[in-house]
């Protein structure tokens, strides 16, 4: 564990000191010439150039979107899949703040940060795909609410959830800046923000599924279902947690020195706990899929090419990881948990792309195939999110311990505060 903050609180630094501190924080920490940077930086730059072309010459200049296929990779991957992967934030905060599962304490901040950035970047990627992006503000300001549209709900849910997630994370920002009074105020809002955030998440994860209820007849019957909002909601639980397990494995290597002792000690138990939740929700999801097949009288469709593709998704990337998660929990096998998490993530990716792109207008002779530039922009968005994520984790008390003054504000002075970093005596 390393010390995180040694600067005096902002109240004592003054505005100039705060500016100096912020400028200092902008400087890179460590070498810029890492393999990840060398791969991601050119892609981000190329994506930025492509987006400049897209906004000056229109969507058709770099995408294969058309009136027939208006939703492409950017919505299917970034928005629909990215938001499912962001589901870990509301599940973990629910486990920690509502169910009082204290062992998840050390991953709450990083999961909330992950969820928040996923919404900012992936839900934000919606703007790239809108024909008239400047009108995105209309459902908010009331120029044209569009009350009859599911997108009205989605827009409000996204916006409110981003605010709730930021509020949940904001005490870490106040700790970073050394703003004691602001942190105290923000900390009082956390529980309310969590409850609000969990409610909103449940609504908009299912709301994204509800979007596809509008496309009955255009989506292959194996993927179209009246239950699609419920299926999207249930699957977002294990999608989000699988990402948390996967991301935790990477963070454990990439940010090893920043992680608190508490995090190191509880890491294995956290992974096993999350894997158990994944196994339980996948059990429910598989049951819902079977009921949906029978209820929608779709069993006969299974022995068709699309049916085989459907079986690959459900058996190969839901049933198999479900079995792996189950055995991993029983055997307390970390590696198996990670393998199951990766397979689950592939399954969610397949499912969301199947619903939004692959099975969309499956009956047409001409199909939408993303252009190479769409892939580049998609990758660019993902890499940009990782850059921002890394910048924040390397500076704010996300994985590292909060400063002692922040912990003292929460617990009586007589209680030991494991992992807290003392501030210099000059300011104590």
């Amino acid at each position: 564990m390393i010390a995180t903050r040694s600067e005096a609180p902002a109240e004592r630094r003054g505005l100039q000191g705060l500016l100096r501190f912020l400028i200092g924080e902008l400087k890179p920490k460590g070498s810029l010439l890492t393999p990840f940077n060398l791969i991601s930086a050119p892609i981000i730059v190329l994506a930025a150039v492509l987006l400049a072309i897209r906004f000056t010459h229109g969507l058709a200049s770099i995408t294969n979107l058309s009136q027939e296929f208006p939703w492409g990779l950017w919505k299917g991957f970034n928005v629909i899949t990215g938001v499912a992967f962001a589901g870990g934030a509301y599940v973990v905060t629910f486990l920690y703040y509502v169910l009082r599962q204290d062992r998840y304490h050390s991953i709450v901040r990083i999961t909330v940060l992950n969820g928040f950035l996923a919404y900012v970047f992936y839900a934000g990627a919606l703007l790239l795909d809108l024909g008239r992006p400047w009108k995105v503000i209309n459902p908010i300001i009331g120029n044209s609410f569009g009350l009859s549209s599911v997108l009205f709900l989605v827009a409000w849910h996204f916006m409110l959830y981003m605010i709730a997630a930021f509020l949940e994370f904001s005490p870490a920002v106040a700790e970073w800046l050394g703003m004691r009074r602001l942190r105290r105020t923000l900390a009082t809002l956390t529980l309310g923000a969590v409850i609000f955030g969990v409610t909103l998440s449940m609504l908009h994860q299912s709301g994204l599924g509800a979007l596809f209820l509008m496309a009955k007849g255009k989506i292959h019957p194996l993927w179209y279902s009246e239950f699609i909002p419920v299926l999207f909601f249930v699957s977002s639980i294990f999608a989000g947690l699988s990402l948390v397990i996967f991301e935790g494995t990477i963070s454990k290597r990439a940010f090893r020195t920043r992680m608190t002792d508490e995090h190191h000690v509880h890491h294995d138990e956290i992974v096993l706990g999350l894997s158990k939740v994944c196994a339980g929700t996948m059990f429910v999801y598989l049951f819902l899929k079977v009921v949906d097949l029978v209820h929608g009288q779709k069993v006969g469709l299974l022995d068709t090419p699309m049916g085989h593709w459907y079986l690959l998704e459900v058996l190969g990337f839901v049933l198999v990881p479900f079995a792996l998660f189950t055995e991993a929990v029983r055997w307390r096998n970390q590696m198996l948990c990670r393998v199951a998490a990766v397979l689950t993530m592939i399954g969610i990716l397949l499912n969301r792309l199947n619903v939004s792109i692959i099975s969309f207008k499956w009956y047409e002779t001409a199909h939408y195939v993303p252009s190479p530039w769409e892939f580049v922009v998609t990758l660019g968005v993902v890499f940009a999110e990782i850059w921002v994520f890394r910048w924040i984790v390397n500076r704010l008390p996300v994985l590292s311990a909060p400063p002692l003054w922040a912990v003292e504000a929460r617990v009586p002075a007589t209680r030991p505060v494991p992992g807290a970093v003392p501030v210099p005596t000059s300011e104590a």
Partner: protein
Amino acid sequence: METLVRDPFASKGIEYLLVLAFLALLPLYWRYLNGVPRLAALRVPVGERRVLSGWFRLPEAASFHPGHTWAVPVRPGRVRIGVDDFAQKLLGAAQAVRLPDVGTRLVGGAPGWTLDVENRAFDLPAPLAGRVVARNESVLRRPGLLNEDPYGAGWLLELEVPAWRSGLGSLLHGDRAHAWLARAEDALRLRMSPEVGAVLQDGGVPVPGIARALSADEWERLARELLDPK
């Protein structure tokens, strides 16, 4: 079948049956998920699916006490315990194993049994608190089993541990166990004399009875020091 599922009444009936099956399976599945692998199946991963942590074997399924003893759940509420690879290699061939009687209550971290090596008695800590419900009679008859297969045929006791899940959670497992064993190895390397250091250069692994190889005169003190959970 296809005709059956196309009939709305039949498909509704199947849906009801599915819901009933789900409700019946859910508690069974939850019990299975929270249970532990059967003993017969457990022998395989503990005995054979070994992971080498440097020099010493460290099975993924086992949880470890810092005093170099291990615990593995046999079924809910019942835990099998024994001596780890580090301890058996450090001490070498055991002349005798002295185990507590069935019914004895062991305290976690307190001496649980005794190994006699070269006429010296070594008390090793019980990894968990619990009541002894079974002893490995084979290892009493043939102490060498402990050295041949410390995680399999060389197990020592089975305990009844009501709070077995939280008890195992408090022990070292997975990455934490690897890190702890790596530290124990480092401590051992620091004591290496040149002749044993050649093992490192050869890329080999330590032979049983490392403590005696390191220091013929003070091996007992050295072994006690390296086995000390602190």
